[in-house]
């Protein structure tokens, strides 16, 4: 608990309505969307502007109080699960759109703006902000940026980081810096913007962001293709890319996932096939038409049982929305859902799907697989029960093996959910011990007191041992 004196100091900065330290308030911010055990933070603080954030950070740096910045708490790897001595910084008061610049095609936002609100605002002006994580209806853009969130449109348009042009950041010493800007070119020193992207709140607090917008594609078309087995669906993914077509979306759902998604969303998804691909292409009508036809041919050649093209945008949106609910819908199967986002080069998708099934059989656990197959980013998910220690342990072992497989195939342990707490012990597989040491050096240079989301990504207090 914070001393009375420190509590008063926080209240002096943000006002008493924006400082909470009752047991209930602390408990309500004790978790994120990972299955980790909740931990009550010391307090919850809701600053109203950048100056207040700076004051808070200075206070915390002086008194060595950890800070966990939290958007909507939709993290899946424990990135915003607080520690007992930490304050949770929330952004419900910093949720304004600062500027929509139609000349430079940028939007400037505060961290508390909801991702899908950005979509609505810019699309009304004929513009497009492509990143669309499944949590976009509730996630905040600040969280998207520091987690470098992906989404369904990542294959063609990239991820959040590809659209972050500039940031205002409060550094761990309380200094406010502005990185990047509305600039197509900018090589003035290190690229601090991209350093902050995906830093999981360990290097500073993002208080404003300039995001890149692009013209809204004229048309889009969505189709689904049904397959009698996982392999042919996975092979189709590689075939489409190899044919030099980059669809917006190329999503994979296996039978078990399809079943729960249909159970929830009731959009008429078929549940009698082993795998389904959800494919979307956008752009000028003639090109969309050509690509969709070509993709349909590739699907047929790869043994697709059936192909259906959405009649209109509403039907297409329904399909995409249903797909976004997949993870939460899988929670219908069991009390705990353990999910990963190991990512491999696109050409290895079929091998990865095969490996997932082998590992599931080896450890005798059910693994449902869905995900952004087109960019090699799958979400093998294990419905389990954290209260059943033996089974949960088997599930964890299965995933540990999957990380190794992914890295061996040239992939990574996490494509878009971040390392957080849950994937720390596997980080070395991807970046090596020397890589972790390099990251720690950056961390300690900027945050010598280790107050920014300590214990996330890696434990800076422990030395990596090279094996």
């Amino acid at each position, binding site marked *: 608990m914070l001393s009375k004196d420190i509590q008063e100091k926080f209240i002096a900065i943000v006002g008493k309505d924006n400082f909470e330290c009752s047991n209930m308030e602390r408990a309500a911010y004790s978790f994120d969307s990972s299955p980790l055990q*909740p931990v009550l933070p010391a307090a919850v603080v809701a600053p109203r502007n950048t100056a207040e954030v700076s004051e808070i950070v200075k206070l915390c740096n002086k008194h060595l109080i950890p800070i966990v910045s939290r958007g909507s708490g939709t993290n899946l790897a424990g990135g915003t699960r607080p520690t007992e001595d930490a304050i949770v910084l929330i952004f419900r008061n910093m949720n304004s759109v600062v500027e929509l610049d139609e000349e430079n095609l940028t939007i400037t936002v505060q961290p508390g703006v909801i991702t899908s609100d950005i979509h609505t605002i810019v699309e009304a002006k004929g513009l497009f902000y492509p990143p669309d994580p499944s949590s976009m209806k509730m996630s905040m853009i600040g969280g998207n940026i520091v987690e470098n969130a992906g989404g369904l449109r990542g294959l063609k348009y990239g991820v959040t980081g590809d659209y972050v042009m500039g940031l205002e950041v409060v550094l761990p010493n309380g200094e406010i810096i502005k990185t990047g800007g509305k600039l197509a070119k900018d090589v003035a020193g290190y690229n601090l913007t991209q350093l902050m992207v995906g830093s999981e709140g360990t290097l500073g607090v993002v208080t404003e962001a300039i995001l890149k917008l692009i013209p809204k594609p004229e048309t889009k078309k969505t189709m689904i293709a049904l397959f009698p087995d996982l392999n042919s669906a996975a092979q189709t993914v590689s075939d489409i890319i190899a044919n030099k077509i980059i669809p917006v979306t190329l999503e994979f759902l296996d039978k078990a996932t399809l079943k729960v998604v249909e159970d929830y969303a009731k959009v008429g998804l078929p549940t009698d096939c082993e795998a389904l691909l959800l494919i979307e292409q956008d752009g000028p009508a003639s090109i969309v038409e050509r690509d969709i036809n070509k993709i349909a041919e590739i699907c047929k050649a790869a043994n697709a049982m059936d192909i259906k093209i959405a009649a209109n945008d509403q039907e297409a949106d329904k399909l995409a929305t249903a797909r976004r609910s997949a993870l939460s819908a899988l929670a219908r199967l069991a009390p705990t859902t353990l999910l990963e986002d190991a990512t491999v080069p696109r050409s290895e998708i079929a091998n990865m799907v095969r490996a997932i099934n082998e590992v599931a059989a080896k450890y005798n656990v059910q693994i449902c697989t869905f995900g952004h197959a087109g960019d090699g980013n799958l979400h093998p998910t294990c419905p389990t029960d954290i209260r059943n220690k033996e089974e949960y342990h088997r599930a964890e072992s299965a995933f540990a093996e999957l990380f190794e497989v992914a890295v061996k195939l040239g992939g990574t342990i996490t494509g878009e959910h971040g390392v957080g707490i849950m994937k720390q012990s596997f980080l070395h597989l991807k970046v090596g011990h020397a890589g972790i040491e390099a990251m720690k050096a950056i961390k300690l240079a900027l945050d010598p007191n280790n107050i920014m989301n300590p214990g996330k990504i890696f434990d800076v207090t422990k030395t990596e041992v090279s094996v």
Partner: protein
Amino acid sequence: MNQNEVTLIRERFREKMNSDQLQNCMRCGYCLPHCPTFIISGGKETSSPRGRIALMRAVANGELEPDAEFEKIINECLGCLACESVCPSGVKYMELLEDARDIICQTRQYSAPVKLARKVIFKGLFKKQKNMDLFIGALNIYQKSGLRFIARNTGIMKLFPSSLVATEKVLPEVGSYKAIKNRPVRLPAEGEKLAKVGFFKGCLMDTMFITENNKTLKLLQKAGCEIEIPGGQACCAAIHGHSGEKDDAKDMAKLNIVAFENMDVDYIITNAGGCGAYLMEYDILFQHDPQWHDRAKKFVSKIKDISKILVELKFHERFKLKLPNQVMTYQDSCHLRNVMKTFNEPRELLKSIEGVTYVEQKNAHTCCGSAGTYSILHADVSMQILDAKMKNVLDTKATTIVTANPGCLLQMRVGIEREGLAKEMNKNGIKHMLSPIFLISSPHLLVRVCNLTILFV
């Protein structure tokens, strides 16, 4: 909350709360943008379904000590169930909420006045239909005898909380004791008999809203329903279930199950979303009672809202419905929508009326803030929600708002009072108003169509 209560609540949470359901919430946050209290709070996790479930789970796991704030947070929920219908994981939120409230209410040692008030309302009034009949009969006398005039004009109403005063103002002209007692038990179909239905009267619906009930019955007859109205029915017990009086709720549910059990009917028709939805969850109420569970399931399978059966019997296609030219909008009853999954049918009926221009209001599906006793017990939050709602209503330029539940009806009337339109409406009459709003309930509206037989061409 004293230490004894804290310990007991904790123990009972551990014993009684459904730990699978608590665990099933994977905290994805899909519920957040749909929760009215979360939105009104400006995004506070403690005002969200995800937050409430997290607190319940922490208390049940012994990680968190329940306190007065915990009780307040649990009670702040409207129970509109917008969260439950969007939850991909299928968490049974209502079950968790009702269990939590039941444990808290049954453990708390409330002060004498609170205890008395709860006893009078839950056990004296809503549990004993005869007392309800008498009470509404007395209210009828109050309205008809000039007492109301005196009450409103002597300033005596100022002694009561403003939310109660607002409610008093918008009450309908209620039924007399005599009319309430004279409910027939069987009504024939008009014309060809297409279905045989039972009718669930409801406690307030058959007293305070007796006119609506009469018109609902007339409408069912016209649609081709032979109707049985069995005696021995009780209040649906939604108010008990939502307020932590689960044992009373079970007593009354049993009466209702028995009342309809041996009746050879295709459906049991309700005309209030709140009641219908609670009746529909009787199987959950008795899920741990093998003796009653199957009987409850059978009962539940027959429950159907009036608007649904009208559409199914193609009432609106067989009869030509007509009203004077007007713009109309609809306010969903949360429970009709989120539990009974009935939301297209009322709209379809309204759109089928000649002369009606139907305009959907923005967020018609979100709670109006009535939520049973919520508008009285949590007037501040309720009014904030209502004011936001009224903006959307006014945007439609509708002259008629249609609702499908008595609570929503009263709340929307309060909304009009607050918008200051009511006086103008009384003064100028409906026809001459610039932005007039006139309020009717769904059954009310449709029966209005029936009464004015000239509307059937």
